[in-house]
């Protein structure tokens, strides 16, 4: 353990826990503070998460944690031997210099000692304070003393310091004296911190404060956060969907997207990114309970390789998608449901009644980071700047942990000890990075800057990937800077024009064989591999120079004398061939690229006309501003339905594009000087890599992670990690972040070599093993191998995750739980 580094992580939501785990797994001592009394942040409210509608919070805990952590379900609490968890503590300020920061903290309010509390709840009866239920403010009131989290037993009570009047009645009535003013209440300074990670997350828009369409006025119009509690089995209605106003049955529910987002009147020129998927999930959950569900939206944002399928599934299950925004919500006299007025098509105004209306809320446009977030030595997770989904938050948190450690080692003359050199004989202390795009470059550099040897393998003769041609100068500069640093770093060996042929060996003792640029054979031993192979543009099959792939629109075409410029016409068709079979996924990069190009064409040629045909403009976060900018710059946007895409024909003088303007209900015929098609990206080398490294790939050939939400950059094989567009299409900036996060995940894996490993979950009774190799087939983690020494099948302790598949499949009962004989298992029954 490297006790020189003392890290402070602020916020014990999923980001903070991830960052704290990464820092602790790397061998540092960590303080984790949380303003609330229960860890988990927003995820405390979200019982079910798409796409499988389960909770998987515990899956972020390290695989060897058994026995070291007092409770694995993080909804009930959190504990880790190397993390000091400080609940009920708010950080007010941070000052100092990296390596020597001091934090001003505040402990407040009364505390209930769970050791003494018997759960009699007498305190609830005498508490005179009523406050909005903290997890679901729209669903009613509770006392200042209340159960700290819905999944906790009754003797885990919280007292909200903001609501408590310190009247002391609860203390008087408590039969066991469990309630007392917390020791050391008040401000307190914590000194000699090496670094701090700010992971408090964003604040969510409260439509009640803006009386958005009547939210706050009608009890049955609630926020998406309230809905999570309403449908929760431990929520106020025990999971039965009832109207908050009269507990009447909910038959029909509507979701209204973009509450507090994509609204210039609220100064909210941003997309909150996750609300579309959350609303689909919520509607599907309600549908399972027999509700009729409608979703009012503008662009259904299902970015990346996974979510289009989820959307298709929602539609198949009968979720109505209505593309428009409602104007108002009213309750007619004598009615117990609410009426929404909306206009789905020009000249078509409808009224429809719903029992429950859910506002999909995202980032509060007024949310700002605290002033001390800019303090040197404080690293802010991306999830505290914008709303990210679970996987995105975890990736951003790991990247932040890595950045924190790197910035700390830069600013200190003596970085504390041999932090990342594995001495474990079983794990080779080096990493093979495959792919020299932004993800691979940033992974390699992050590892090298944390004193880990890297071999970077790139198929092409140069590093940087497609991003070095990016239209965004900052992206180009960032990637070029990464490339320079990688090429100069002594810990990194770059192999350009290299062809990988195989990778063998058990977890942590991998051997890759490849041909280098001159065709010479090379063997690379490595303890971990990061696969960052990226994607390529899919081809546009045409000989016509006027029909151009959006990825190929050369810079010269942006100049005034190019065809289509000056007073000419340019037409874009987005999702041309994607988001439908056989490429039923969103490539994520095309929308923002097309928007940038359209803006640029208009800027250079104010007289030219630019038309964009689109299905859904999928940009997220502040990239929404690109869309707003393109519209205000005079780019004409025309939505089309997948079953009726615009058609085009190349003629002598122009490319004729025919479509329909749905607002004017007019057939359009545009004689375009050029047609730009966004036909998406394909993961060309991913399936080869998947085969070489024996991991899974998706039906469309992307690298598959172990868990799409909670372990997004792990593969199912221990020691092999995936990141970048080859896993899931990402923008260049996100690829950089993923690279950093993958590096951190790999470092945690390498660091296992320094710890006492608890041993394998499974043991093999060698005398019984018949070498039938059925376990080899059954093991999803490739943790079984024939052991030359024993002559029996063996278990790779580092790769085994204890799933038990090998035990189930073994015909001779040669595989067994380690330390648990079959008889003992029977006794448990």
């Amino acid at each position, binding site marked *: 353990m490297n006790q020189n580094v003392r890290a402070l992580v602020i916020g014990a939501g999923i980001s903070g826990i991830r960052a704290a785990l990464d820092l602790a797994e790397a061998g540092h001592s960590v303080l984790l503070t949380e303003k609330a009394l229960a860890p988990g942040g927003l995820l405390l409210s979200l019982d079910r998460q798409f796409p499988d509608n389960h909770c998987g919070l515990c899956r972020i805990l390290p695989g060897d944690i058994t026995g070291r952590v007092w409770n694995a379900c993080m909804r009930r609490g959190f504990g880790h031997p190397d993390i000091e968890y400080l609940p009920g503590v708010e950080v007010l300020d941070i000052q100092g210099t990296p390596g020597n920061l001091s934090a001003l903290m505040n402990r407040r309010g009364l505390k209930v000692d769970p050791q003494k509390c018997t759960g009699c709840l007498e305190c609830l009866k005498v508490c005179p304070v009523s406050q909005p239920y903290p997890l679901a403010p729209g669903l009613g009131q509770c006392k200042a003393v209340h159960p700290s989290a819905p999944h906790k037993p009754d003797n885990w009570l919280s007292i909200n310091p903001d609501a408590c009047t310190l009247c002391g009645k609860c203390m008087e009535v408590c039969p066991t004296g469990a309630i007392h003013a917390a020791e050391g209440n008040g401000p307190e300074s914590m000194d000699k911190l090496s670094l701090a990670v700010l992971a408090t997350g964003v604040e969510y828009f409260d439509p009640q404060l803006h009386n958005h369409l009547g939210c706050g006025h009608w009890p049955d119009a609630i926020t998406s956060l309230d809905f999570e509690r309403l449908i929760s089995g431990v929520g106020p209605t025990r999971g039965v969907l009832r109207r908050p106003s009269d507990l009447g049955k909910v038959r029909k529910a509507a979701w209204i997207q973009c509450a507090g987002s994509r609204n210039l009147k*609220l100064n909210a020129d941003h997309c909150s990114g996750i609300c579309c998927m959350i609303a689909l999930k919520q509607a599907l959950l309600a549908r399972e309970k027999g509700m009729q569900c409608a979703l009012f939206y503008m662009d259904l944002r299902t970015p990346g390789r996974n979510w289009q399928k989820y959307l298709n599934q929602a539609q198949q299950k009968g979720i109505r998608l209505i593309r428009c925004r409602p*104007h108002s919500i009213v309750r007619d006299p004598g009615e117990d449901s609410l009426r929404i007025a909306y*206009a*789905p098509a020009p000249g078509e105004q409808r009224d429809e009644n719903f029992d429950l209306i859910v506002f999909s809320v995202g980032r509060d446009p007024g949310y700002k980071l605290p002033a001390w977030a800019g303090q040197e030595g404080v690293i802010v997770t991306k999830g505290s700047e914008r709303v990210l989904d679970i996987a995105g938050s975890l990736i951003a948190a790991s990247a932040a942990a890595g950045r924190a450690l790197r910035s700390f080692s830069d600013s200190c003359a003596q970085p504390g000890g041999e932090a990342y050199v594995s001495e474990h004989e079983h794990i080779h202390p080096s990493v093979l990075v495959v792919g020299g795009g932004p993800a691979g470059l940033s992974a390699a550099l992050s590892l090298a800057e944390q004193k880990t040897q890297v071999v970077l393998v790139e198929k092409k003769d140069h590093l940087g990937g497609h991003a070095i041609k990016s239209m965004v100068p900052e992206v180009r500069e960032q990637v070029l800077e990464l490339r320079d640093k990688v090429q100069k770093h002594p810990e990194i060996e770059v192999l350009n024009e290299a062809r990988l042929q195989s990778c063998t060996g058990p977890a942590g003792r991998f051997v890759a064989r490849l041909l280098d640029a001159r065709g010479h054979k090379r063997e690379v031993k490595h303890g971990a591999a990061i696969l960052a192979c990226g994607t390529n543009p899919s081809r546009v099959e045409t000989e016509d120079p006027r029909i151009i792939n959006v990825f190929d629109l050369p810079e010269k075409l942006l100049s005034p004398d190019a065809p289509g410029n000056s007073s000419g016409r340019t037409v874009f068709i987005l999702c041309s061939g994607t988001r439908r079979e056989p490429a039923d996924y969103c490539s994520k990069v095309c929308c923002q690229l097309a928007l940038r190009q359209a803006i640029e064409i208009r800027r250079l040629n104010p007289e030219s006309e630019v038309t964009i045909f689109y299905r859904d403009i999928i940009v997220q976060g502040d990239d929404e501003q690109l869309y707003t900018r393109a*519209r205000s710059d005079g780019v004409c946007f025309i939505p089309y339905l997948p079953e009726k895409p615009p058609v085009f024909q190349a003629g002598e003088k122009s490319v004729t594009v025919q479509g329909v303007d749905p*607002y004017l209900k007019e057939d359009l015929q545009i004689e375009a000087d050029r047609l730009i098609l966004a036909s998406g990206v394909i993961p060309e080398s991913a399936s080869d890599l998947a085969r070489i490294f024996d991991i899974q790939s998706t039906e469309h050939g992307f690298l598959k992670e172990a868990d799409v939400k909670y372990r997004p950059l792990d593969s199912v094989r221990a020691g092999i990690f995936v990141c970048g567009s080859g896993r899931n299409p990402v923008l260049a900036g996100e690829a950089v972040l993923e690279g950093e996060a993958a590096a951190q995940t790999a470092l945690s894996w390498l660091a296992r070599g320094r710890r006492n490993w608890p041993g394998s979950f499974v043991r093999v009774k060698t005398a019984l093993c018949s070498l039938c190799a059925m376990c080899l087939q059954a093991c999803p983690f490739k943790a079984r191998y024939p052991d030359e020494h024993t002559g029996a099948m063996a278990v790779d302790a580092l790769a085994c995750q204890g799933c038990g598949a090998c035990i189930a499949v073994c015909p001779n009962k040669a595989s067994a739980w380690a330390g648990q004989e079959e008889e003992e298992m029977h006794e448990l029954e």
Partner: protein
Amino acid sequence: MNLNDAQLREKIARGPGGGKNSPRICLGCGTCAAGCPMTGIEGFDPRIIVRMAQTNRFQELGNSVLPWLCTMCGRCEESCPMDVRIVSMVREARGMGGNKTIPEAIRRGIEMFMAHGNNLGLPDEDFGFIVEDVAEELTEEPGFEDFVLPVDKEDARLLFTLHNKLVNTQNEDLKHWWKILHAAEESWTLPGSSWEGVNWGLFSGQDEVLQAGVDTIVKNMERLKTRGLMYPE
């Protein structure tokens, strides 16, 4: 008002209401149409108006009946998440059509106003007769025996303009106003000429008519040295 094509584009890019909220920024969400009392009537939809403005078909819009179907109530603008100034745009579109699209009643009212200072074309003498007659009736009611109609009284606090329907068909309503003013002991005056408080230039989209209407009021205020304006339209 005839703008050439380039001027038109410029005007649309700038957008009515100062430039920030050009119709181009419209997201097509239809919040406006959902709240509009006219959506669906003769195919009307605010989105059509905004779309035509977006796609440089402003003149065609001005020549059509669409801007005249709008009641200019402003529900659309109030709720528009992109803050597009839809009503101002409708007014401008009405002005684009010139005299030929303006509905007959409004066109004639405007002609009367430009010629006689009020939309009815009522001579000042007749106006005087009507209001004095109503004032006399008011003095017959208990409590208002001492009511004197302050026509063209200088140095009053308020200049009181009238909606033309009050001197036309709804004379009785005049009394309600005057009773309030009398009871409040307000210092006010009624102009003996150019008393019109309805400015149809607002609806016709003709800036010059709007200007003329404002001018008559300003002139009256200057002439009678009033400090404030009561504008009941």
